[in-house]
């Protein structure tokens, strides 16, 4: 379980996060939406222990986060920068396995299994740059999954992919989530996407000083489909509601001290 207790963060005088409290039960896929610059990435990096919370606490499974927690994985938007171009796809995925004390052959075998699982066949020995953007992001997802994380953070992971690739990867994410029941925090600025993949959607207010302004459970069936789910009344109602909330925070005057 992931718990945030009135987490705040400032850069200088400017509040980026202003008292964010959230509880994410095990196995939930939480979508976080908000206008750009609202501190979504800062929130994610704070949960990951990459940035210390200045006020409030973040706890993962009851342990306060001070460094990067065990069994946490992050998928960044910039797949091109997040993968290491001088390693093969397989070695990129196998890299986090080194600390498990596995031999090289075992690490590679495991990496190849995970690559197959994310739908990448026969690219193990290629370099990341030889792959398309969508495939590179699949590699990054494979690298995140290879250590069987209990908490997976995703920072606008599909933000720079074309629509078709994006839909495929959304479905891959849902599949992985259903199978592993990993707790996932999925940050996006795409309202439809937040509803489509999420079990729950949280809307952050526009920065500076973002806080949670809306917290909606997604009442869609677990089995989702790009065509029928997106066409269903429940989906449309939800995306309208989230959309309204996002529009409201974008139009509202900035909150917090200036």
């Amino acid at each position: 379980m992931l718990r945030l207790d009135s987490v705040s963060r400032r850069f200088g005088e400017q509040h980026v996060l202003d008292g964010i409290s959230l509880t994410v039960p095990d196995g939930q896929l939480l979508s976080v939406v908000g206008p750009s610059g609202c501190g979504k990435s800062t929130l994610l990096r704070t949960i990951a222990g990459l940035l210390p919370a200045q006020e409030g606490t973040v706890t993962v499974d009851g342990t306060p986060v001070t460094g990067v927690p065990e069994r946490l994985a992050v998928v960044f938007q910039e797949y091109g920068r997040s993968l290491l171009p001088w390693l093969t796809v397989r070695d990129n995925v196998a890299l986090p396995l080194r600390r498990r004390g596995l031999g090289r052959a075992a690490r590679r075998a495991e990496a190849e299994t995970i690559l197959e699982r994310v739908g990448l066949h026969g690219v193990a020995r290629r370099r990341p740059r030889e792959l398309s953007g969508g495939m590179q992001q699949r590699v990054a997802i494979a690298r995140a999954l290879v250590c069987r994380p209990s908490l997976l953070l995703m920072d606008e992971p599909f933000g720079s992919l074309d629509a078709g690739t994006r839909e495929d990867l959304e479905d891959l994410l849902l599949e992985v989530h259903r199978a592993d029941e990993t707790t996932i925090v999925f940050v996006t600025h795409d309202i439809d996407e937040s509803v489509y993949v999420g079990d729950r959607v949280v809307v952050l207010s526009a920065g500076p000083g973002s806080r949670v302004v809306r917290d909606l459970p997604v009442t869609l069936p677990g089995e989702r489909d790009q065509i029928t789910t997106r066409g269903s009344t429940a989906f449309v109602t939800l995306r309208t509601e989230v959309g309204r909330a996002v529009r409201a925070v974008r139009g509202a005057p900035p909150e917090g001290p200036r």
Partner: protein
Amino acid sequence: MTRPDRETGPEAGAEAGVRPWSCSRPYRDGPSGVVRGPVRSRTAALVPGQVRARSPFPFLLRWSVFLGAGLCWEVAARARRSVYFPPPLRIVRHALDLWFSGPARHLFLSSDAVGTILPSLGRMAAGFALAAVAGIALGIAVGRSRRAYALCNPVLQFARAVPPPALVPVFVVVFDVGTPMQVASIVFGAVWPVLVNSAEGARATDPLRLQVAAVLRLTAPERLWFLILPSALPRILAGLRLGLSLSLILMVFSELLPGSDDGIGFTLTDAMTRSDLLTVWAALLLLGALGYLLNTALLAVEKRLVGPGSPAGRTV
């Protein structure tokens, strides 16, 4: 101290033998030895190694200016019959006689070559290797710590700004003329560009990749080996190339001093005192060829490591 001034002639000649070939390369060497601007351009045409592949002229045509200049010199020297400027063909023949007329089992090196070229090359190799190891290690260490960089940067800028040959007198006093002094001169001349460029390379490691390393919980050695060193590699190699040309300069310069008794630099001064200009020119030719060969060898290594098609060659 008129002597070092007088001796800048051959030194400049040695440098000229190395530098022109780096002009067509994407590395722009700043006046004080730091590589300026982005080392690796996004345009593929500027990736090291591809320059040669995309050269608009075939091999022979590219060397035609070189050959043409030699020909002009040959014709002019024969017409003038000046003792100071012998024709190039005579210089080449003289150089071959002096150094490459030995038996086949000695790789055609004459005993004179063994006594002249090998000591020079040995000192240069030792000096350059020490400078490379120390420069990369210290440079990465300095570049990885913001505090260390802030504290060391003024010292580095100062040390780098001192013209390396000016340090030679210090080592003459400390070690007396001989191999230790010559190696020390090379090390202290060549280490700064390697150090500064390695530090810049390590400092420029992508912050997102450092976050990735933190999230993957890589250990410090893993982070160094899998992330920082490969990221800094293009800059390290650029520093090594600057260090190599400085090594050659300092190798010759330190051998020019009175008291040294072997090496190419000694051959130069020795021939000068005997007014044997043919040998002086032959030594210059040898130095130019050596500089060119060493630089070409390093470029080949560079192409393998960071060129197109190599693992790191596809870095952003």
